[in-house]
């Protein structure tokens, strides 16, 4: 699934621009960054409600492909700038975390646990 498709599915706004044809193969959803670091797979989409700088740094060290912030929450400008430096695209959707995951699942995005790779 491309970032462009994800933006359409979630009616999302893109904060940190990057190539929208990037392909995201899997997703991981958490507000616990420790869980992202423990259980996520590389090149996944990170779906979260947290908007602090540690989310960007977590996504960077865990090789996440892009981040979706739910419920319209936006990171501050410094955090957006950090993501731009790390070349991590940021999306904001007004959907809840449940609906964000549900819509992406419905369109075929999976966690590594279901789809393998």
């Amino acid at each position, binding site marked *: 699934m491309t970032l462009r498709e994800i933006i359409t599915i979630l009616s999302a706004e893109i904060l940190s621009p990057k190539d929208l044809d990037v392909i995201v193969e899997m997703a991981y959803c*958490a*507000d*616990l*960054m*420790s*869980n992202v*670091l*423990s259980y996520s797979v*590389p090149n996944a989409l990170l779906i*979260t409600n*947290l908007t*602090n*700088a*540690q*989310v960007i*740094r*977590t996504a*960077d*060290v*865990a*090789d996440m492909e892009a981040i979706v912030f739910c419920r319209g929450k936006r990171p501050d400008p*410094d955090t957006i700038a950090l993501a731009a430096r*790390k070349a991590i695209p940021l999306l904001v959707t007004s959907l809840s975390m449940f609906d964000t995951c549900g819509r992406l699942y419905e369109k075929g995005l999976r966690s590594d646990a279901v789809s393998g790779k």
Partner: protein
Amino acid sequence: MDNNAEGTFFLTGKDFSRAGTASGSLKKVLENMGLPSNVIRRASIAAFEAEMNAIIYAVAGIMHYYVTPEMIRVVLQDMGQGIANIELAMTEGFTTAPDYIREMGFGSGMGLPNIKKNVDKLTISSVAGEGTTLEFLINLDKTGEGGPE
């Protein structure tokens, strides 16, 4: 590409605006050395967890890294409250983190177990009330495939 590197980062306790910058810089170094991506990911995750621990629990700390063709070695020394019971701290879910740390998405008791999961050797020594030294090794000799998981 030179396959030896060494460096030091200084960490300041409670400085959450910079928390993660040392491991981010280490990741860049490893990427520039052309190491396999799974090795870089394991080393970066372990370093990030260790860095967060120092920033959450200590007053100050130092992270040294050494990379040779055989291994990545990271040593993190901090001056802080130390770990009273290391065995207990290695238990998934055990935490002493205050609520504001958890609101940032950390302090859920996964840090040390996650470091162990990503490295080939982990050594922790600590004196309660003085500080903690954490050292980990990641072997590179088999091109880093696999890992201890």
